[in-house]
């Protein structure tokens, strides 16, 4: 469902249940800017009573150990890299590109 009005940006959504918890990546929202991204994130990922939630545009993240952009899902692992990190990644978060 495209929105002819705007160029949407993908925002990554992070949240934690308690102050003592670490942030976890809970998903993504697509929004025209940070203001609506905040609203969408809060209303979309409402399965928990979060202590804190934050969003950041996906493009704000820099890859550390891989060449591809962070949060990329799917596709075969690069040849010769059977890294445990790749096989243990959590399932199902985010929207497929």
């Amino acid at each position, binding site marked *: *469902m495209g*929105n002819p*009005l*705007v160029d*949407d940006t993908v925002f990554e959504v992070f949240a934690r249940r308690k102050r003592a918890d670490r942030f976890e990546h809970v998903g993504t*929202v*697509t*929004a*025209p*800017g940070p*203001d*609506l991204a*905040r*609203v*969408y994130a*809060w*209303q*979309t990922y*409402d399965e928990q009573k979060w202590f804190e939630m934050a969003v950041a545009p996906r493009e704000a993240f820099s890859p550390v150990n891989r060449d591809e952009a962070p949060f990329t899902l799917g596709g075969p692992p690069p040849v010769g890299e059977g890294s445990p990190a790749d096989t243990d990644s959590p399932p199902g978060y985010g929207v497929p590109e």
Partner: protein
Amino acid sequence: MTEAKREGFPSVEALPSDVREQLGNLLLALADNKRLLGMRYADWMLGAPSLEAGIACSAMAQDEWGHGRIVYAMLRDFGFDPSHLEHERQPEEYRSIELLDEPSEAWPQLLALNLLVDTALSVVFEAMQESRFEPILYKVRKLLDEERFHFEHGRGWTALMASKPSGRESMASVFAPAWDACLSWFGPADDELFTALHAAGITASDAEGLRARWLERVGPVVEKAGLGLAATVEGAWQSRTDPAWSTWDPIRRRTADGGPDPDTLARVRGDRNRQLLMD
């Protein structure tokens, strides 16, 4: 405030009878508006401009229905029969603003409800955050927590639409009538309901004070969007139009007669599920 804090009213029975009547009227107006507004948000769960906006409408619909439910339930103690209120009334018995009578034909119209009507209701709940009517205090806090995001949604989308001339134009034609209806919703300066509730410490302001607060919230948003509805005069937000009172109904808090259209009424009363109402 130099005035000593007055004692609270722990129950409906503790309210003086005139205050009880006015508060009952206010709560019924709030509940009806919440119920109908929830339906209008729900109309856009499918067909909103983006998947996320649809989810937001769904969340806001659920919030509004929840708020409506809570307020209808309170009305039992005010001598109303909640089952009658929810399932048996005729259109002209509803105390909802005329803007909610029919579905929003286009997204800008829904935004006008989101930004202007939803905020008007929230302003009244805000004015009860320190109400002497104690049973409402806990309910108001949770409600306002949720409403924060409704306002942000309305503000975000209004700004977005205004960034394109065609978007601004489509908003201008529907925001103007919605603006005037909301402006009147608070009532004239000597509105009996809010004058009585303010004097009794149930609300923090009277009609003028509430309208001023609403203007403070929505004024900057519509001004930034170039809709020409509000401006600041000596630092205070003012409407560029004046409310018209000649046909304004102080009980239903609206100018137009009539009420929710037949389809809306059937849905809001749950007519199709009438056989499931056991008692």
